[in-house]
């Protein structure tokens, strides 16, 4: 990047490019549909009725605005900057994922689509999608890796209760990226009636922009709440990153506030030195997958490698293209946290604040732990608590050697 842009909030361009990243790398069969989706999204953006319905559902169905919370005992324990949390784990279905699903299903209905498909890894996006499908009475097919189904039985049962059909994916290694491949295969064969609700700010344009916009409710609320509560903006925003939708949702409304620094936290798994991590930005290279150009975990021939993280929601081998651009532009700093650090942060938050976080935001909390100590006591860190940890207690118990 030669010079700083005037605004960090005007991406992507009309072709869906965030700098060199993003775009629409899809098969020709999908291309007309992706173009139609973009037209429909622009029309929805211009329609006050769409926004009104979205806002109404977020308030009365999801439970927004989510609280802004000062974590007093955690702050004391860390002995540095004040730590505040945006409590998106209190949303209906327990994570930020529902914000995006509400927006996309309203768009699907607007487009006259009658069937919804989605991919899921840990099951959070699958549960959120199944939830909105039940709410609007649309049939729902969720693609989920066979291996993930085995690991995430409670979420599989939740989705079934909500009326979704779960299709086990055995191709490849049976994880999230294979589920996404299978979702794309379904979509290409059912373009006439099917809407694909992508769960993160990735995929072909306009998905990265659209998901970011729907998730930006997090940052918009937090910005206002901070002004109301302390009369100023935070010094540092922190969020975990798998595909990156919760981070973009928090960061985007603050991107043009130069005094607000931002830190995205990837999953370093067993460490960035080996292959057992899911840090696409810090340990990957630019490439093309699932409709967009972005950083990917891949070998020297461009074959995609599997990510690893204690958190099933972070072990995707790619990342949203806007993060790739924000990294290269220098606006957002990225770091990574290993499994053990996340596990420790998970327990710390349980004991200091009485909040059981999901393992995904536990990565953000681990990064907060390090940064808070280096900052003044009057500095403010705002971290996104993007999901609750009920789904993770079995994983955590196993790691701690406890049988339940």
């Amino acid at each position, binding site marked *: 990047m030669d010079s700083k842009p005037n605004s960090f909030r005007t991406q992507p361009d009309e*072709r869906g490019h965030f700098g060199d990243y993003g775009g629409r790398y899809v098969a020709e069969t999908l291309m007309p549909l992706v173009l139609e989706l973009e037209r429909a999204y622009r029309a929805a953006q211009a329609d006050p009725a769409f926004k009104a319905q979205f806002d109404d559902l977020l308030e009365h169905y999801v439970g927004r605005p989510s609280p802004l919370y000062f974590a007093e005992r955690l702050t004391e324990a860390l002995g540095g900057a004040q730590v505040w949390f945006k409590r998106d784990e209190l949303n209906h279905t327990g994570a930020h994922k529902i914000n995006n699903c509400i927006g996309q299903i309203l768009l699907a209905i607007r487009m006259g689509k009658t069937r919804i498909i989605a991919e899921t890894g840990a099951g959070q996006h699958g549960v959120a999608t199944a939830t909105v499908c039940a709410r609007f009475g649309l049939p729902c097919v969720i693609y989920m890796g066979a291996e993930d189904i085995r690991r995430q039985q409670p979420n599989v049962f939740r989705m079934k209760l909500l009326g979704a059909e779960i299709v086990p994916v055995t191709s490849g290694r049976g994880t999230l990226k294979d589920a996404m491949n299978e979702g794309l295969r379904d979509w290409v064969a059912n373009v006439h009636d099917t809407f694909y609700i992508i769960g993160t700010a990735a995929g072909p344009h306009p998905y990265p922009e659209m998901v970011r916009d729907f998730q930006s409710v997090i940052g918009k609320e937090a910005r206002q709440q901070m002004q109301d509560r302390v009369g100023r903006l935070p010094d540092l925003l922190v969020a975990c990153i798998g595909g990156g939708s919760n981070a973009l949702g928090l960061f985007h409304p603050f991107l043009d506030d130069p005094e607000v620094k931002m830190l995205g936290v990837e999953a370093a798994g067993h460490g960035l030195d080996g292959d057992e991590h899911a840090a696409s930005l810090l340990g990957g290279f630019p490439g093309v997958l699932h409709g967009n150009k972005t950083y990917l975990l891949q070998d020297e021939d461009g074959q995609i490698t599997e990510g690893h993280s204690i958190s099933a929601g972070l072990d995707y081998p790619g990342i949203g293209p806007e993060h790739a651009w924000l990294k290269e532009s220098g606006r957002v700093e990225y770091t990574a946290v290993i499994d053990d650090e996340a596990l420790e942060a998970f327990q710390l938050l349980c004991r200091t604040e009485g909040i059981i976080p999901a393992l995904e935001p536990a990565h953000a909390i681990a990064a907060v732990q390090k940064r808070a100590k280096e900052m003044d006591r009057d500095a403010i860190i705002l971290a996104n608590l993007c999901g609750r940890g009920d789904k993770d207690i079995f994983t955590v118990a196993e790691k701690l050697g406890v049988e339940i």
Partner: protein
Amino acid sequence: MTDRLSTAFSAPRPALVCFVTAGDGDTAANLDALVAGGADVIELGMPFTDPMADGPAIQAANIRSLGAGTTTADVFAIAAAFRARHPVVPLVLMGYANPMVRRGPDWFADQCAAAGVDGVICVDIPPEEDDALGPQLRAKGVAPIRLATPTTDAARLPRVLEGSEGFLYYVSVAGITGQQQAAQGSIEEAVARLKSATDLPVAVGFGVRTPEQAEAIAKVADGVVVGSALVELVGEHCGDAPQHLRALTAALAEAVHTAR
């Protein structure tokens, strides 16, 4: 370099395009069997971990190939050796963007040219993203071969044709490779529509498995592409695959070549 392609499609009879995945079985022997059976154009699949547009047969071939350790260098070695053995048979690579652009589009285009590759079909680089590979291929005389599908309407077709070279690949079904076949009527209508919009030869693929299907399509199209049915033979017969490939190719070639 695209001369080989134009020659193959300028014959008075329709062309048979045969696909196998590179590094799946003894690829050199498999390719020789396709040529011996009467294939007019060879489509060599570059294996990829995430073949999103492919059905189970070609997915499995990709997994077998990568499991055997196939690298991009191996794919180009197979192509170059094929070119040395078969100086006039056109060879096109088919695959996905990431392995093609990993070392940069210029590197890839250079390798194609050096290996005697005549064209490249990249599933996930639509005309909108042509900059990612198209200019580099054209500069090296390698044809970027585009796909048209049932969802490519009249308004969009010019966009697809712009910068398209070699031949136009009509994907006859909205779906993945090796699944259902399109109704013959819809293929005839689509080919007529495409041919009225371009002078490029039009080859039809996806779901074509039998000589009967191939013959019906060859009555209206310039070429017929068969992939999954051949790839299944490789998966099924391993070391004995070449004789089976040759037999099926011969039956398909007979049907295609005498269709009109």
